């Protein structure tokens, strides 16, 4: 039996980060372990850019692993590789004296491998394994700095990730049973007849993608992680949920068509509102992710799969650039600030859909999915996005370096600038193949106006705030997590304190009394006269019965 049937590179792309991660644990390399980070996603990048479509099988691995490279997966695979590459380079400049570099590098690589795996997996078991890898390994990235805040965020993250895994397991089991096949395509095809499986899967993936109300972990975990990890989390890791939905949503999702659109829009607006009330730039960005992912969910609900992938990919690049931007701004002094801020604003504008930037193209691509008031709702969300990202940049600028002439190191700004470039430019090349539109469409006057008015509206709304500077109430990061967490820990506490059943014991009730009765009987049988009488009686009875 062949170990691998088909090209080897997909497996190499997954195994390579793992090998590097293990290598990082080697005692001699431990101190310089971070150097493996940029190298880890390279084979995957090669795979995404230059490899023909096709599938590879390894029958001995897991339950028979099948990896497949096709359009939406390839785009997101490339996005994941690029973001992790940029974040990896950034990390080299970001960590001066890293804490436990080997552990960080190891889990970084494991998370990356899982993140790549979900984009490639074509069978349920591999997908589940990769999904679990990206979910659980990312925990170590969240809690890396070991602060109380990070640990708390990590705990919430882990609990919800577990819940997600359980939902996924149930959904996958039901799906596999319905399809009687481990192939994702077959499962997806049978899901329209298995509403419970579909629900579980949507909730499981939605949890990862920040779907309201399961988004709570996101604004906690993303800010808590070190900046390069935040970029990967918000840019790449949340897309594991998106690819899940892309792969598993059936043609006819029934009620969930509406459900996804509604929940998506609630997230899109709720994320804006909650985000505006934050005091930390990274938390605001995280809420922006919730909001943007809400839009993607709505697009998926509307049935535009490839457009959703394109939108998600653009968001990944841009959001990762924004997170890195927070780190770059933090290393920038007053003197270099204008230039850096101008560059940092580009991805923000792009996400808000400013004309001619990549974001405008992807926004145009998803537009055909909505009609009537939905169209307006989607368009208006760009206003919210603009306000939210402006707030984020505002907060980030406040966190700039103290030294006036501080400049970001090349290892910080180069990957950041690269990401910005990709975010702005890539949609121009991909629009035609991922939607029904061509780049020429967005140059039309109508669509330029469509892209511009929400921003103007945002500026109008922001103006009074900038003048009056009212006190806005603060919302705790993770909003719903506060009451829910309290309730959950109370429940857990009660469960642990439930009265324990008493342990088994061996004493027999009434043993002493029984003992006395038996002893009395024994004593009564001791005199020979009684025995003799008994014997005589028995002899008579027996003789009578034997003779008769």
């Amino acid at each position, binding site marked *: 039996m062949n170990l691998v049937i088909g090209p080897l590179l997909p497996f190499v792309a997954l195994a390579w980060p793992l090998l590097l991660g293990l290598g990082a644990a080697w005692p001699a390399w431990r101190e310089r372990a971070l150097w493996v980070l940029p190298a880890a996603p390279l084979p995957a990048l090669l795979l995404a850019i230059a490899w023909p479509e096709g599938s590879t099988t390894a029958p001995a691995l897991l339950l028979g692993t099948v990896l497949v490279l096709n359009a939406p997966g390839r785009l997101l695979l490339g996005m994941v590789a690029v973001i992790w590459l940029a974040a990896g380079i950034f990390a080299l400049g970001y960590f001066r004296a890293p804490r436990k570099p080997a552990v960080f590098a190891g889990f970084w690589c494991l998370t990356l491998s899982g993140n790549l795996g979900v984009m490639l997996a074509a069978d349920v078991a591999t997908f589940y394994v990769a999904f679990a890898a990206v979910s659980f390994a990312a925990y170590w990235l969240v809690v890396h700095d070991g602060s109380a805040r990070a640990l708390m965020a990590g705990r919430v993250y882990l609990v919800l990730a577990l819940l997600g895994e359980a939902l996924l397991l149930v959904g996958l089991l039901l799906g596999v049973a319905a399809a009687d096949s481990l192939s994702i395509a077959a499962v997806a095809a049978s899901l329209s007849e298995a509403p419970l499986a579909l629900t579980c899967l949507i909730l499981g993936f939605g949890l990862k993608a920040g779907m309201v109300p399961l988004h709570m972990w996101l604004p906690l975990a993303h800010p808590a992680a070190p900046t390069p990890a935040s970029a990967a989390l918000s840019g790449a890791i949340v897309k594991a949920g998106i690819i899940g939905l892309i792969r598993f949503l059936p043609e006819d999702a029934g009620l969930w068509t509406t459900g996804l659109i509604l929940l998506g829009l609630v997230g899109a607006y709720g994320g804006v509102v909650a985000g505006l009330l934050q005091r930390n730039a990274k938390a605001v960005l995280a809420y922006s992710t919730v909001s943007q992912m809400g839009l993607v969910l709505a697009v998926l609900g509307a049935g535009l799969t490839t457009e959703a992938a394109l939108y998600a990919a653009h968001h990944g690049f841009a959001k990762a650039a924004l997170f890195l931007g927070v780190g770059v701004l933090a290393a920038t002094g007053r003197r270099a600030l204008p230039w850096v801020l101008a560059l940092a604003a580009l991805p923000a504008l792009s996400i808000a859909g400013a004309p001619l930037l990549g974001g405008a193209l992807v926004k145009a691509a998803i537009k055909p999915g909505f009609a009537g008031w939905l169209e307006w709702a989607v368009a208006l969300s760009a206003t919210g996005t603009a306000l939210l990202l402006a707030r984020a940049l505002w907060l980030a600028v406040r966190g700039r370096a103290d030294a006036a002439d501080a400049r970001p190191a090349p290892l910080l700004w180069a990957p950041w600038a690269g990401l910005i470039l990709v975010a702005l430019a890539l949609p121009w090349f991909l629009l035609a193949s991922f939607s029904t539109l061509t780049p020429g469409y967005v140059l039309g006057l109508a669509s330029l106006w469509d892209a511009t008015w929400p921003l103007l509206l945002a500026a109008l709304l922001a103006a009074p705030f900038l003048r009056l500077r009212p006190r806005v109430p603060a919302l705790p990061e993770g909003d719903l997590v506060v009451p829910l967490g309290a309730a959950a820990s109370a429940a857990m506490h009660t469960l642990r304190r439930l009265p324990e059943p008493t342990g088994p014991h061996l004493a027999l009730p009434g043993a002493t009394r029984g*003992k006395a009765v*038996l002893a009395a009987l024994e004593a009564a049988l001791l005199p*020979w006269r009684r*025995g003799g009488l*008994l*014997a005589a009686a028995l*002899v*008579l009875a*027996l003789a009578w019965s*034997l003779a008769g």
Partner: protein
Amino acid sequence: MTTLLLSLPVALPLLAALLAVAASRQAAGLAMATGFLVLGLSVWLAFEVAAAGPITIALGGWEAPLGIVLRADGLGAGFLVVSAMVMAVVLVAAQPSFEDQGQESRAGFAFWPLALLLFAGLNTAFLSRDLFNLFVALELLTLSAIALVAIEGKAGSVTAALRYMVFALLGSVLFLLGAALAYAAHATLDIGLLAQVELGWPMAAALALMTMGLAIKTALFPFHAWLPPAHAGAPAPASAMLSALVPKASFVILLRLWFDLAPELASPLLLAVLGGLGAVAVIHGSLLAIGQDRLKLIIAYSTVAQLGYLFLVFPLAGGAGGAQPWSAGAWTAASFHAFAHMLAKAAMFLAAGLFLRAVGHDRLEGLRGLARAMPIACFAFGLSAISLMGLPLSGGFTAKYLLLTSAFASGQWGWGLVLVAGGLLAAIYLFRPLNLMFSKEGAAASLTPVPRWEQVLPLLLALAAVLLGLFSAGPFAFLQIGRPGAAAEGLLP
């Protein structure tokens, strides 16, 4: 040759007993030599029986009804071999206890001849076919047993011995009356001859008398109360003989009476009475054993319970369905049970004797921590416990398995439940001492050392009880030699 083979197991111990009185200095050696010699002879005899079938001889050429007839069938020869094994080991084990006391003491002087007389009585009971000879054998056996109980002259054991004597006499009287009645009606006492004639009501009355007499001697409930104090009060090697061997003689006679002599006379009431009393004995003896605080009393009460199982053979015999590949399961099981009990109970009493010597008393508390100090003796105790509980692999298990199968196959579930319950109760009373042996907290600081070879003796017997279960196919086939028809068909048509 066969004449010698059959008569020597009876004659040798008698002769040795006389010599032991005469040459009391060599008594211990003489007894041991006799033990092994008889063991060798009975094994030889067993091989002869296996090869040629049952062997019958008439001493001096006088056939029954005039002369003394000895007969070795599978059952008799089997009991002969196992009891000789137990006897040989017990006689070796007794040596340190009675040698050290010197020749002046009554115990040191009397033990060996008494043990040899008991041995002779036992062998006679297994081989004889004549009701009067059997009576004589039982008397010999009982009287030497009673003397052995009282041998140390302690007040408690003398009382126990006296009580034993009263019950034994009662049993003897009943048996003798029965035998006399049989002789008056049929002018013969030979079992073989009696089996061939038409039996009437006098024989029914005779059988009722003899059955009750033998039941009393076998310490069947409710005639058992004398047994625990007597067996527990005797010195350990004597207890081993009393508990393991003595009751088996009367039981074998009971088997012969019903299965060889008069199966056609059996009535449902007889079966119910014997089986029922046996069942009560199992439960009652076990419960009392649980309540005891002295090791030897526990073992003695265990004997009461274990003897009860034997009586289940009466209702269960013949209870094999068509699905079973064997016949006479219950009848064979009774013998197996007796064998296993002989070996295991002797091993247990010998081990208990060693514990008593090491600790100085036989209260249960004294057993603490002995697993570490006397591992071999404890192991022997554990192994014999397994056989007594009827757990696999052991002779006790084979017996229990066969009995249970008979019970279920014939639809007599009640007896089956008694068997199961008895096994569980046995586990309770036997694991109490075992648990203590494994508790190091509160272990006695100093113990009288016991030499290793003495600990090996009970282990040998216990191992034999276990091996009986592992290799039970041979004994099973052996017991079928000369098997009476009723053993397979049951006592009721």
